[in-house]
């Protein structure tokens, strides 16, 4: 299974071991880390809500399409669900290929698509006590950008 959703921290060393392949010359990894600021606000923690059945099936579809397009040998992705702390790895994408170009292109394409196509939502908790769903500016009708809860 190439797409995984995990409540537990991502075992990056274990994933790397599992991708070992003596026909591969290049291995590219992207990790998205929880950082302490976003769009000018200080972030304290965050949580991901994931609709797992479709996040997995759409993720597998994206990975298969990108492998086909780029000629990479294999790719895997893991996305966290639930509460995360600063510095945690929220998403891990690893790609192996014969030469480095395919692995770089495939890794970039997979993370770009994961961010906009999978049913995953991020709620940021700010240092000032506020919190809000990210990216919901456009679905707000009533004049405030986030569903703020103090």
């Amino acid at each position, binding site marked *: 299974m190439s797409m995984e959703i995990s409540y537990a921290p991502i075992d990056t060393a274990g994933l790397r071991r599992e991708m070992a392949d003596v026909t591969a010359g290049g291995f590219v990894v992207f990790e998205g880390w929880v950082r302490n600021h976003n769009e000018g606000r200080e972030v304290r923690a965050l949580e991901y809500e994931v609709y797992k059945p479709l996040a997995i099936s759409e993720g597998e579809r994206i990975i298969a399409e990108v492998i086909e397009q780029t000629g990479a040998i294999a790719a895997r992705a893991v996305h966290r669900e639930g509460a995360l702390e600063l510095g945690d790895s929220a998403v891990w994408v690893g790609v192996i290929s014969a030469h480095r170009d395919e692995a770089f292109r495939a890794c970039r394409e997979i993370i770009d698509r994961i961010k906009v196509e999978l049913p995953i*939502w991020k709620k940021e908790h700010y240092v000032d006590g506020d919190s809000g769903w990210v990216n919901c500016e456009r679905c707000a009708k009533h004049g405030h950008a986030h569903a703020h809860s103090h």
Partner: protein
Amino acid sequence: MDGGATMKSVSVEYFALFRDRAGRSQETVETTAEDALALFQELEHRHATSDPRGHCKVAINGKMAEWSDAVNDGDTVLLFPPVAGG
């Protein structure tokens, strides 16, 4: 044909911001909406969004769908606010 006026029973599920706004994660609605867009707009009092096209997604019976896809009696419709993975 008077399919457009037929009353259907549809299970609707709300996620993330939509769930917060609707105050519920699931409900069964009786509707005459022909497609997902019409159903979404009928439920504006729940999710407070007038037009979902371009930034919200919908799934019907476990598969990603288009807003123009038909809604039938007994369907389960998942309403997804803008996603933000990674």
